[in-house]
């Protein structure tokens, strides 16, 4: 549960928001604007903690209510990957460096981090654009770099907030398929918040959120 404000101004952004996601599973979370999807995502992303409830990631109890059970910064760094609506790449770093910095932050030496960054870019078909800056890449290419960065530290969960919103339908589908392939290949759980109903067939499980309540969609 997540409550903002108090008294007359109290707003319940999440009421009954429960979800279990297995390793290698790709999950979609649908819902209208204001349903609480982003609040849910930032809560399990350990950015905006819930008012009550529990979050368990990779068999580890991370949060009870607003109380963190672990060092959130370190946990987020090691277990979570993020992909956003906008690619959110660092503009003064090249494609390779955007991935490499995430690996270096996790304690890798620059040479090893560089090698792994190039491997990831190669895996996502972006090795030829490794030295390009974000401004030189298309929206789809930028999103692939962001996904590479999200995968950089072999996270248990990737959280994606409207990752295809800025892409055309063809590119959007490609990105969703990429998420599915990576989830199945790497055993990473992927939770995608999306409005895009055209690619729902790529998801293993689909949830719907409305008025702060999450329900499985059949």
């Amino acid at each position, binding site marked *: 549960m997540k409550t903002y404000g108090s008294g007359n101004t109290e707003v319940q952004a999440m009421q009954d928001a429960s979800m279990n996601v297995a390793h290698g599973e790709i999950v979609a979370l649908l819902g209208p604007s204001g349903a609480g999807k982003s609040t849910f995502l930032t809560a399990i992303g350990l950015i905006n903690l819930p008012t009550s409830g529990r979050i368990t990631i990779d068999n580890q109890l991370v949060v009870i209510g607003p109380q963190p059970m672990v060092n959130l910064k370190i946990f987020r760094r090691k277990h979570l990957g993020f992909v956003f609506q906008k690619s959110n790449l660092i503009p*003064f770093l090249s494609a390779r460096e955007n991935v490499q910095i995430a690996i270096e932050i996790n304690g890798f030496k620059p040479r090893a981090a560089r090698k792994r960054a190039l491997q990831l870019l190669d895996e996502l078909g972006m090795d030829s654009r490794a030295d390009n800056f974000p401004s030189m890449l298309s929206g789809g290419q930028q999103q692939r770099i962001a996904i590479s960065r999200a995968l950089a530290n072999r996270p248990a969960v990737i959280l994606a907030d409207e990752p295809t919103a800025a892409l055309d339908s063809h590119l959007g589908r490609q990105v969703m398929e990429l998420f599915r392939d990576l989830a199945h290949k790497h055993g990473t759980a992927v939770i995608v918040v999306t409005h895009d109903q055209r690619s729902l067939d790529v998801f293993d499980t689909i949830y719907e959120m409305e008025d702060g309540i999450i329900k499985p969609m059949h």
Partner: protein
Amino acid sequence: MNLAVKDIKHNLGRFTLTAVGIGMLLMVVMGMGGIYRGIIEDATLLIDKIGADIWVVQHNTRGPFAEISRIPQNIDYRTLAIPGVVSARKFVQHTIQRSYQNKRLRMTVVGLDWPVDKGKWLPLVAGRILNQNHYEMVADRSLGMALGAKIKLGKDTYKVVGITSNMISSGGDGIGFFTVNDALDIQFNTPAEAIRLERAARGVRLRKSDQGLKQPGLIEYAYQESNQLPALESPRVSAVMLSIAPGASPEQISSIIAGWNDVSVFTREDERQLLLKGSVEKVRRQIGLFRALLTIISAIIMALILYTLTLDKLHSIALLKLIGASNWMILKLILQQAIVLGMLGFGIAYLLGQKIFPRFPRRVILSDDDLVQLALIVIAISVVSSFLGIWKAMKVAPNEALN
């Protein structure tokens, strides 16, 4: 990966322009320090170079570098009688403003006691020292006179036989070195008409005085040239400089001269301090305050620039925090950029200063000590200035990357 370097390389043009701006600001700070050094150097140069151990000046005055000093020319004979004094030289100094080649010429005239002092101590860059008692001069390069050039001062014409470098008076005017006699001629030059009128007036005054009435024969003398009248003293000099024998005590010799009631006496260091604490002191304080003000302004401007640079990166900083970057990594990004900006600005200031400062009318001296001091100040400013940006960066929440 060094994020600061990556950001600078990516925004090289903007960063360079910012550094040039900071550099020009620091050049002014550097220049102020250099002007101060130049003033001190110029003010003390003559005292240091001329090599006098003791200065004998007009009674109750601080000497020719602080105020007008006039003493009789024969003081040198009296001082030579003191044990330990090996040489006594008359010294004349005054400033003139004339016209030379249709341009305004301000020159400090220094008289050397030729032939005791022919100017062997002068830092000549061309020509020679004074070889005769009249009509020669050694000019400082700043006066703009070429070797062999001639200039009419008073009734006489003087030829430039030597050129010095950086011989500037405390007032900032280039020095022209003449013999004492020529320097006095330049100072007390009186037109022929004025001399004739004075002779006539002298006769009239004598006729009206008791002495003239009782001794009419004296009136005939009144119309003669001044130098033929034993009652009239020759022009006074500014000071007499003494050199003392090795091992002799300047304090002891000074105390003897101080016992004479018609002069005052100072050691070289006294005269130096009088100069620095006198006319130069206010300029020194003024420049010091101005320099401090400029340093504060530079710090404020740098802080604003660094703050703006940080604002531009807030989204990237939030993103870095979201993917787990430590505060130290973000702090390093801002701090390193601040120091690079400061040091680059310092380098630009130095290079620009090397080109621009020599064109200043007064000397701007960049001493190694001053440069090191300023470099340290710049590093300190850079660090302090970055605090505002760091504070802003530390306040950014990771979820701001989602916006």
